[in-house]
């Protein structure tokens, strides 16, 4: 039940960049359906930039890595996703104030990230946004921590919950973000940001070997 340190953080971010590249087109298609067709490109641009910075910077803690991701996404992604993910990672970085995360640490990082997203975007569960993925994810990690599980178990639970949360957006009518402009027509489509959130948490769990 090893805690998750800098190695995990680095391999997560690299895996995240690979996943975002792989799913670029799929995220584009989701956003074309109910948004403006750029979410895949935005995430791809952001994480490609993160990879570039990772080589030059020499982060030594999980917090360093998360902060690097935060500032890079903030300054390269743009759109709604840039500030939202940027804030999530920034608050997560602040919450990751130890060398290695245990389950409680994972839960704290996810809770802080979610808080950041809500602080900026003011969305609630059911609004058909990334909040629908983050909220159950943070809760699931907290649950694992409360019942004495490992950091990796917390991430696995969070990833699974995020996946279910992303899928739960399919039937929803959007109330926030661009999809809200479509009214009823937004139902029947997955929210792109909830999907990318689920993808990122899946790579976080995988990187932890969970």
């Amino acid at each position: 039940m090893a805690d998750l340190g800098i190695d995990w953080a680095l391999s997560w971010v690299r895996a995240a960049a690979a996943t975002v590249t792989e799913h670029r087109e799929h995220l584009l298609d989701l956003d074309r359906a109910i948004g403006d067709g750029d979410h895949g490109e935005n995430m791809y641009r952001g994480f490609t930039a993160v990879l570039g910075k990772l080589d030059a910077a020499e982060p030594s803690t999980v917090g360093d890595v998360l902060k690097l991701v935060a500032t890079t996404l903030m300054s390269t992604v743009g759109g709604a996703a840039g500030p939202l993910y940027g804030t999530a990672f920034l608050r997560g970085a602040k919450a990751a104030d130890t060398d290695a995360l245990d389950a409680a640490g994972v839960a704290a990082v996810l809770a802080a990230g979610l808080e950041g997203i809500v602080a900026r975007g003011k969305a609630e569960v059911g609004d058909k946004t990334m909040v629908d993925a983050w909220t159950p994810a943070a809760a699931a990690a907290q649950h694992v921590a409360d019942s004495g599980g490992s950091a990796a178990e917390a991430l696995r639970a969070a990833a699974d919950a995020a996946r279910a949360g992303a899928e739960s957006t399919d039937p929803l009518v959007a109330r926030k973000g661009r999809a809200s402009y479509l009214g009823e027509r937004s139902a029947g489509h997955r929210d792109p940001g909830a999907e990318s959130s689920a993808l990122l948490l899946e790579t976080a769990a995988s990187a932890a070997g969970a």
Partner: protein
Amino acid sequence: MKKLINDPADVVPESVEGFVQAHADIVTSSGDPESLFVARAGGAVSGKVGLVSGGGSGHEPLHAGYVGVGMLDAAVPGAVFTSPTPDPILAATQAADGGAGVLHIVKNYTGDVLNFETAAELADAEDIAVKAVVVNDDVAVEDSLYTAGRRGVGGTVMVEKIAGAAAERGDDLDTVLAIATHVNDNVRSMGVALTACTVPHAGKPSFDLPEDEIEIGIGIHGEPGRRRIKAAPADEITDMLLDPVIDDLGLSSGEQVLLFVNGMGGTPSSELYIVYRHARARLEALGATVARSLVGNYITSLEMQGASITVLRLDDETTRLWDAPVHTAALRWGV
């Protein structure tokens, strides 16, 4: 996808480069592709409130086409349909600051609002007074506390022109903000798409529209509209767009308005004038006077075919400010 572009990733920087070369008498650019913005060739005007706008690219001539005397001081073009990040907005804000503060003119999209907010905080930390007006004139979208609210569309051009004239005559930041807000409060828009558009990096049309259907209530980001209907004669479509605009504006007999018929990028101006003709007749039948007009591609959605109708309620002051000289790449008169 067929476009007159090179690498999709270079569309914005190459286009801005050409734009700045073609209009070097009016504008200059930051030159820095990592922090791209367009500003007046002469730099910030000392003592004048600076006006900065920006947002995703793909709406040309908005916003760079409105940089110049009498309108914006700087414009920040993001990737296509993607709000720029805070860094270039901050840099543009600094470039536009003549010591009297800066007004951000922001279209109401989550991304734009968030990125401009962050930039404003950063500018504040550098002792630049920044205020923001958030334009939200699109009546296709219901306005509610619980939603993202209305989009900013055609009314943005009106806000930029009129607030720009106020700043140019020397109004202070609060006054310019008040005028911008007043314009936003009195302008409404609604749009129609006959075809979708294709974002260069997506390579596919933003939606599929059968040969005999159109989208009513679209925005300017290639998103589908509120509803899809069978294609109809221009006069009928004009009614569908104008009715909610008139309604929401609470327009009544005796009022003066500016009628703005905007092309989405791929519609010939001859069709815009057909829409204008009927919209004008409708407004006049209502007892309103169409005192000013604007017809053309002023806030577009790449190569989309379609149009939007914007109506601005005029008073003496806004009319005077609309008429004031302007010298930008896309709007020019009196100079």
